[in-house]
């Protein structure tokens, strides 16, 4: 079991949990968290290298590092793992954000030990989800990632935190209910008459036994189930409240990684296993996600709370992820995955910076702040860079992701899809409006509040957290083809053969 590198993505956080439980003071907690999250980054880099090496050596299998250990025989539940380019990218993203999040919560108060325990438990769920290819364990890890969120917001949050925590958890649980129905449905149709039923994604996809009638029923269930976490209109309202109340690192992890679970799940389960239904029903969800894209951006234009602005911006950007996945062509889907990476990194950066600014000014209302560029130049410059990434400046990650999506989507043979692509394109202008509005009010102009003049710039751990994320954002933006090829390979696999298109 322990000769498979993937299992360590769950083992390391579990060891961290043990280590944290033994910690006596904040120093020890920090040490454990830093060592653990660094180990995760190293692990994901090793995985990336190994993965690329195997691909370069000509490994053509859809997933690599595939392994399966029986867990519960009567229902054929296994702990099955395996990765393709997309999972590798997602694992990298998660480890980077856990790393940055650790430094962003350097001074967390009160109960630092408990905070880190829940945070690491959350990351167990996240990592487990991305390495699983067994629907049951996948769902289990999904739930593991959701529950800690309730406590993290409820205890360490700010503002109307009880309401937000409850709302977020209940709405996502509602999504899970759909999802569970869908997954069980898939299980019972996973093999042809008389065959061994299975939860394993690869086997289900090979069997291709889910008949069309059932697909029409199961596809919407799973897509909506995951879509709730991907902030799909009209199930996105947990996001503004939840993010606004969550503590910094939780916002980072939630927007940066957890929302990606939604997009990833939509792709890996809903579309991968039921491509025919996806093809036929895509128009419904295209309309919904298209609305998300534009609607989220417009809503962001008039918000005054920094976190609300960013949460609505996430609705818009994540809407683009689901939008592109539904286009069912290689380029657009590659773009969707790139957008997940890009959005994950830049919202994490945004939330980290907002947390740092809030920690100083004790307000997130942009009307009460101004001219921060003069007071905290480092944070302000980082904020401008994050904003530029968000509005799609070439050289940063947002541009390549969005352009891949737009070009890919526009290659669709159907006029309806192309027109909707143009609608989605409009978001680039609206994004510019709300980003520049915030940047102009918050960072530029005269100093609004005289008390702010005494504030200090970023500390070393804050700098480390922000710079890590900026470097990653710039790396994707400057060398997109590396990520493009890493992700792209996945799509040469079976999914398009079913539809007879590519």
């Amino acid at each position, binding site marked *: 079991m322990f000769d498979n590198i993937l299992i360590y993505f769950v083992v390391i956080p579990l060891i961290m949990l043990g280590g944290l439980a033994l910690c006596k003071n904040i120093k020890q907690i920090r040490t454990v968290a830093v060592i653990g999250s660094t180990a995760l980054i190293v692990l994901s880099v090793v995985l990336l290298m190994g993965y690329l090496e195997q691909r370069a050596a000509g490994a053509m299998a859809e997933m690599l590092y595939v392994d399966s250990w029986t867990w519960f025989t009567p229902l054929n539940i296994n702990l099955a793992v395996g990765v393709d380019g997309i999972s590798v990218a997602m694992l990298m993203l998660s480890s980077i954000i856990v790393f940055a999040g650790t430094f962003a919560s350097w001074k967390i108060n009160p109960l630092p030990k408990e905070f880190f325990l829940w945070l690491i438990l959350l990351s167990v769920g996240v990592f487990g989800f991305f390495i699983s290819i067994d629907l049951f364990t996948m769902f289990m890890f999904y739930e593991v990632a959701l529950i800690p969120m309730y406590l993290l917001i409820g205890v360490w949050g700010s503002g109307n935190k009880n309401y937000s925590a409850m*709302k977020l958890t*209940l*709405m996502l649980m509602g999504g899970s209910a759909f999802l569970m129905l869908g997954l069980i449905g898939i299980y019972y149709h996973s093999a042809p008459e008389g065959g061994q039923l299975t939860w394993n994604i690869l086997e289900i996809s090979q069997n291709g036994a889910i008949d069309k009638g059932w697909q029409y029923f199961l596809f919407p269930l799973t897509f909506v189930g995951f879509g709730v976490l991907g902030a799909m*209109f*009209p199930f*996105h*309202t*947990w996001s503004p409240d939840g993010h606004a109340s969550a503590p910094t690192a939780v916002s980072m992890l939630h927007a940066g990684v957890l929302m990606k679970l939604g997009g990833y799940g939509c792709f890996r389960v809903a579309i991968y296993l039921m491509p025919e239904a996806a093809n036929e029903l895509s128009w419904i969800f295209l309309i919904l996600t298209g609305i998300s894209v534009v*609607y989220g951006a*417009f*809503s962001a*234009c*008039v*918000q005054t709370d920094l976190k609300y602005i960013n949460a609505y911006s996430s609705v818009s950007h994540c809407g683009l992820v689901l939008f592109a996945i539904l286009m069912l062509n*290689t*380029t657009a889907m590659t773009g969707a995955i790139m957008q997940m990476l890009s959005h994950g990194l830049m919202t994490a950066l945004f939330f980290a910076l907002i947390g740092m600014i809030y920690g100083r000014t004790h307000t997130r209302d942009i009307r009460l702040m101004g*001219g921060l*560029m*003069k007071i905290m130049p480092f944070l302000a410059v980082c904020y401008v860079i994050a904003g*530029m990434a968000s*509005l*799609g*400046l*070439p*050289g940063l990650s947002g*541009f*390549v992701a969005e*352009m*891949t999506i*737009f*070009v*890919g989507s*526009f*290659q669709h043979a159907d006029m309806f899809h*192309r027109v909707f*692509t*143009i609608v989605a*394109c*409009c978001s*680039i*202008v609206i994004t*510019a*409006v709300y980003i*520049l*509005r915030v940047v*102009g009010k918050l*960072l*530029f*102009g*005269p100093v609004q509040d005289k008390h702010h003049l005494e504030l200090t710039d970023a500390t070393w751990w804050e700098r480390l957290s922000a710079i890590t994320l900026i470097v990653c954002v710039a790396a994707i933006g400057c060398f*997109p*083809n590396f990520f*493009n*090829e890493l992700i792209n390979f996945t799509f040469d696999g079976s999914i398009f053969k079913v539809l007879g298109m590519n």
Partner: protein
Amino acid sequence: MDQITSILILALPLCMFLLLGIFGNKMSHKMAGILGTLGMGVTLILAYSTAFTYFFSGNELFVDAAGNRLQHLVFDQTWLAFTQHLVIKLGFLLDPISAMMLVVITTISFMVHLYSLGYMHGETGFQRYYAFLSLFSFSMLGLVVATNIFQMYIFWELVGASSYLLIGFYYTKPSAVSASKKAFIVTRFADLGFLIGILILSFYTETFDFMTMTNAPENVLASTGGAVFMGGSVLTWALVLIFMGGMGKSAMMPLHIWLPDAMEGPTPVSALIHAATMVVAGVFLVARMFPVYLMEVTALEIVTVVGALTALYAAIVACTQVDIKRVLAFSTISQIAFMMVALGVARPDIHEGVGYMASMFHLFTHAMFKALLFLGAGALIHAVHSNDYTAMGGLRKYMPVTHITFLIGCLAIAGIWPFAGFFSKDEILVAAFENNALWGVWMTAVAGLTSFYMFRLYYRIFWWNEPDYEHHGHVPHDAPWTMTLPLIILAAVSVVAGFIPFGELVTWSREAYEIHINWTVAGTSIAVAVAAIALATVMYRKENELPDKLASRFKGLWTAAHHRFYFDELYMFITHKIIFNLISRPIAWFDRHIIDGTMDMFATVTNKVSYAIRGLQSGNVQTYVWVYLLGTLLIAAVAVICLV
């Protein structure tokens, strides 16, 4: 032309940006300024040698046996492969227009770097300023050497961002912040058109590559298969949308509103970005795609109409502005519109497409004399600490170098022989007349207006009535050598640039073309210009009542023009009243109250129902017994009734 040189041309400014951007704070002002200027100087030398090699070496890579110039791909690296055909490459395309632009950009950029050493002396954020200048130079150079339309789009966005950063350089000033925001958003809106145009074009042609498209434009037309969308061919749509991108950057009406406000940036920035280089990107874009535009003449006609309207509009507005930088800004809009018109009227059968050559020629000469005028304006503002000409007057005595160079600039833009503007403007008018007499007359009239407003400005600054300078504290004087040297160099170029045999260097077909000055057209235009200058002399040489009288005589027109025909108010109405108040706010409200309200309603209903029925689970045994008894009785009663 070796690869190293061309890579260096792009890499040097980029490295300077990173160096000054990251380590600038640790450097002294002097160090940062000298580093930036030196870096640009080396880039200038490399760019000159590249252009010189391209035009004059006679190397078979650059010119074929018949004397036609060739397009040469110095390098072309894959950056992002969307599909097998649709690949973004980053490369370096050397051809007449890109070589010419290399010269223009590096020249002006170097002059501005040098000039800023004096102009920005002692400003906070000096290092940041030089970092942004380097970023801009890098982006602009990358734009003009783009080998494919997506590379151009990438650098197009980057110049937009560097323009944003430089306009908002004085970030504590609210007007500068809102001007930078406006510039970015308006051009972003235009870029949306550009992007959609690229999407449409690439959907049919399956390529981004300029050479593939422009060397066989008939294939581009054929690939659309005659598809029609809302009454226009899809190629027309694509070209017009791409042109929309150009309208944004080049400040064509109605997307021009950001340029006058952009004058909030430091004056050397206005000279570099908002007069000489970035704002001509739109012209360059149309020129780059020109063979494809020829396939759809409708698109070119739209270019012409937009250009002609903008030229007239901006010229009228320029006659009524008080802020000298705004006069120059509107003048820039008007002159770029000249270039657009020249491209729009160019046809291969009219003097071998002279309009194209004229447009590029005017781009070149305009860059020189407009940069000169802006830098001159900078020297004036530096001396009197005001942007308005009302604070100036009689300055010829105090600032002789600025005076002479500014005068040369005015003569050049007015199109007086032998200054540079004469030659390029003459070719534009020839092209316009040959295409359609209407455009010829129209543009000649605009040329007359140009001479009028430029000399109005000139007389108001250097003659008119002298305000009491002593009273304001100090007497204005010429700037230090770092500022006057660029003025003198640019003035010298503005005098001689007209004699460059441009037709032999830059034509649309890349065949040499010999310029003949059409003296009927040239004579008329000179006569009009001289008359306009004479009128300006009468009105503004000495302080008198005439201008005020005329203004009150045509009060309506004057007020409207002074308010730039209320375009800004219109935009404010659309953005604030319609987009913010009628779209964004209702959406935000809808989201909070309807969508979220529905979610909350589920919660509330669940809650209420739980409260309502919780009495049933009270745990009170007596109640249970009563309910049990009543239930039994009820069932017994029902049973009895049914049985009986």
